[in-house]
């Protein structure tokens, strides 16, 4: 036994004080009376002597001494060693998405926490607890702590993630603990079964549940202008009849629905139609409730539905250019002649200089140069001479398979060549992507300028080319508009655990991501693309601040397909080594009993006091 606070025993000094008080208090009051005859006679009429009343005074003293002893001991806080009564516990808690399945009123994750909590609470004092959780990351939440309350607090703070868990790292951490202490007891708390499990006790918190899911949901615009939604539906609990419904723009009424007969684990394709093409979002949802609602819904967003872009065309002869850009959809255009253009004209997403060049580069938007007449600081290229060609020469499409080139040239056809009569030789000193070239010179190239804005250069005169009339010219123009005004987020089907690419728009000063749970995070805008990992199921709202404007995009993060299967059998969970049976010394430091005994003593003393007072009335 050890004492945490030995100075508490100083309280025992109160005992002699008590005895002294008792002696002083016990003094008899002397008094001469006329006769002691009647008092002596009264002895004859006393009932049988009550031993308690005879000892009343001394009992009170004994009780008070005992109280002082117990208080002193409690202050000293004794800790008793219990040899071989404690254990080292290591819990590996599965925090994958499937642990969010609700069964018997609580999630599997909560059931697992309850089990661990029970083990911690019932463990002998002196035991140590280690908690490893898997989820978005593998975390060691508790590391060999012997503080039960702290362990329970740490456990209470854990939450299940929505991603697939990788146990590799958890096993590695557990293996380290095992190597250090082979007597450690390992518990794997999960909803999966394992064919082989070594040196760990499997606590499977899974129960039989029903789970439906929609997967691989996509949409495409049909020939009649509406949207066609396709996807697959699954049932993981057993065979089931479900109805899949389609909603538009958060509408309460479904615009289309389909009933499906599902066979367990077999996906069944479905197709739903929407007449509108100007929707902001499409929501596909299973009508029936199940135990894992996270995978019953998918939302898709029309990224360009509400995007409006302003452009300024600076040209004396804008006819061809204006016609070409007019066919590019939601691009607002203003035209100004070069002599009226000045640096104060700001607030445009795109500045197009045709056959002219500004004295100073616009800094608040993308810039297109068409047949630049001179170089300009920050443009990233220098203008040399105009190369006059003998007749017309076909421009060569870049044949590189690099993704950046392939994306910009997608949809172009090899046989549909663009011809020019002359072009401007440019010297490139920034990293541009050459899309078309002539005689080895870059004629159409794209990149970013010194101000971080996207820039496209057409180094030829539109009027001396069939570019605006050719198929490839229209496709390339469309691609370059997309390149100039990139959407915030690429891709449609996003799953929890995936990293999405967020395009950093020109002049973007900040990008905020609002998660489904309401948390806000800010992305790095120093690069053209910022990666963001989805960790929750639901709607993410990404908002980019560009100048005074804000542009938003939404991404619906789905539960990973692997986590939708609510009953899984994995191959193995193996912690290698020979376990030891050696136990840790436990300890007993609970003062509850001391306080109970103290309370009993105080109550007893109080009763004795009351008895005394009653007797002296």
């Amino acid at each position, binding site marked *: 036994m050890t004492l945490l606070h030995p100075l508490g025993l100083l309280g025992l000094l109160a005992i002699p004080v008590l005895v002294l008080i008792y002696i002083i208090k*016990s*003094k*008899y*009051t*002397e*008094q*001469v*009376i*006329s*006769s*002691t*005859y*009647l*008092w*002596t*006679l*009264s*002895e*004859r*009429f*006393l*009932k049988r002597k*009550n031993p308690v*009343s005879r000892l*009343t*005074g001394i009992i009170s003293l004994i009780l008070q001494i005992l109280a002082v002893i117990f208080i002193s001991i409690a202050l000293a806080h004794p800790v008793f060693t219990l040899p071989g009564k404690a254990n080292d516990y290591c819990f590996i808690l599965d925090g994958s998405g499937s642990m969010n399945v609700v069964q018997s009123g609580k999630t599997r994750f909560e059931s697992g926490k309850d089990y661990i909590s029970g083990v911690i609470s019932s463990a002998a004092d002196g035991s140590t607890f280690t908690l490893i959780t898997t989820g978005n990351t593998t975390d060691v939440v508790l590391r060999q702590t012997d503080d039960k309350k702290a362990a329970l607090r740490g456990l209470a703070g854990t939450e299940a993630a929505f991603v697939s868990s990788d146990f590799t790292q958890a096993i590695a951490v557990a293996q380290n603990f095992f190597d250090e202490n082979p007597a450690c007891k390992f518990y794997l708390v999960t909803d999966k079964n394992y064919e082989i499990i070594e040196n760990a006790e499997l606590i499977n918190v899974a129960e039989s549940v029903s789970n439906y899911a929609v997967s691989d949901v996509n949409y495409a615009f049909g020939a009649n202008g509406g949207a066609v939604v396709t996807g697959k539906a699954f049932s993981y609990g057993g065979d089931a009849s479900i109805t899949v419904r389609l909603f538009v723009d958060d509408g309460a009424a479904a615009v289309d629905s389909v009933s499906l007969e599902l066979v367990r684990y077999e996906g069944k394709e479905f197709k739903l139609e929407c007449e509108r093409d100007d929707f902001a979002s499409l929501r596909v949802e299973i009508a029936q409730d199940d135990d894992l609602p996270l995978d019953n819904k998918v939302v898709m967003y029309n990224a360009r539905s509400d995007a409006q872009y302003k452009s300024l065309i600076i040209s004396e002869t804008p006819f061809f250019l204006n016609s070409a850009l007019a066919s590019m959809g939601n691009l607002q255009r203003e035209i100004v002649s070069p002599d009226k253009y000045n640096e104060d004209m700001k607030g445009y997403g795109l500045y197009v200089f045709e056959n002219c060049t500004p004295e100073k580069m616009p800094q608040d938007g993308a810039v297109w140069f068409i047949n630049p007449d001179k170089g300009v600081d920050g443009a990233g290229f220098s203008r040399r001479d105009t190369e006059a060609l003998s007749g017309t020469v076909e421009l060569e499409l870049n044949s590189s398979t690099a993704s950046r080139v392939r994306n910009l040239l997608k949809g172009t056809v090899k046989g549909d060549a663009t011809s020019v009569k002359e072009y401007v030789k440019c010297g490139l000193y920034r990293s541009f992507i050459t899309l078309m070239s002539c005689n080895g010179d870059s004629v159409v190239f794209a990149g970013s300028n010194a101000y971080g804005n996207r820039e496209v250069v057409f180094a030829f005169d539109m009027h001396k080319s069939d570019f605006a009339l050719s198929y490839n010219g229209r496709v390339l123009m469309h691609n370059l508009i997309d390149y100039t005004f990139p959407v915030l987020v690429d891709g449609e089907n996003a799953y929890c655990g995936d990293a999405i690419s967020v395009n950093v728009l020109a002049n973007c000063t900040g990008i905020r991501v609002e998660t489904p749970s309401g948390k806000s995070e800010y992305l790095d805008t120093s690069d053209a693309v910022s990666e963001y990992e989805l960790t929750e199921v639901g709607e993410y709202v990404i908002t980019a601040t560009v100048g005074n404007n804000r542009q938003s995009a939404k991404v619906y993060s789905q539960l990973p397909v692997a986590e939708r299967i609510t009953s899984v059998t994995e191959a193995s969970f193996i912690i290698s080594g020979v376990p030891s049976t050696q136990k840790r010394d436990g300890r007993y430091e609970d003062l509850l009993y001391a306080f109970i005994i103290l309370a009993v003593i105080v109550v007893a003393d109080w009763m004795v006091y009351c008895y005394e007072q*009653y*007797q*002296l*009335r």
Partner: protein
Amino acid sequence: MVKTVIDEELLQQIELLQTLIKNNVAGMFGGNHKSKTYGSSCEFADYREYTPGDDITKIDWNAYARFEKLYTKLFLDERQMHTRIYIDASNSMGYGKGKKDEQALKIAAAFAYLSVCEMDKVSVYTVRDKQLEAVISGMLGKEAYINAIGALNSVEFSGDSYISDAIVPSTVGYGDGMSIIISDFLTDNNYEAAIDHLAGKKRHVLCVQVLSREELNPKARGKMHFFDSEDTGRYYRKNITREIAQAYKKAVEYATGRIREYCAARGADYLLVCAEDPVSKLFFENLTSEGVIK
């Protein structure tokens, strides 16, 4: 000091009372007490037929006219009694907050006056240790009372008292009046022989037990060490609890009951008097209801 013993207003009231003496078989002629024998007082008692030798002045001629027989009128005899008052003058009577000594003296003075008013002789004695000391001896008449009663003020209460040892050897008379013992009787039995002796002498015995209120209903609680005023070698050391207090009350009941029963068995009267109560209460309530006086 006289004023502490004599309450004039009380004495005026007492004049109206009369003692009812039992066993008045003897006594001097000329008193105020009716005797069981026929005598020569003015109070008519009965008739009997005339026999030669009777005083012819006592013949009732009216009865002769009616019955033609001679009848002699008989009259009650009246005797003078001798009241003897014994005051316990031990320390226990005079110690403490109680006024037992003063109360005893007042009672003695009142009884003495009552007797004087009835033309009886009065003697007052104190009992100290085993000695009987006459404070007033053969006092007769109110004038003598006025002159002698002041002697009670000089009575000192000290030492122990053995009532029987003091009274039994003394001259107590025979059938000639009342013997009043005023004491706290806080003793086992040293009064019994005295009562027996006085009753045997055909005396009308009255025991007046004077106890203070504190003795009747003590308030002392807690750890007490009581010393006896008559003998410091006697003490009582106890934590006075409710239980002991109740036992004490039973002891008081026992002690007073014992002496009461003892007196009753011998034709003696007994009265318990609280030292703090007025003497008038004793005379006009207690003694009257007990039939000692009327």
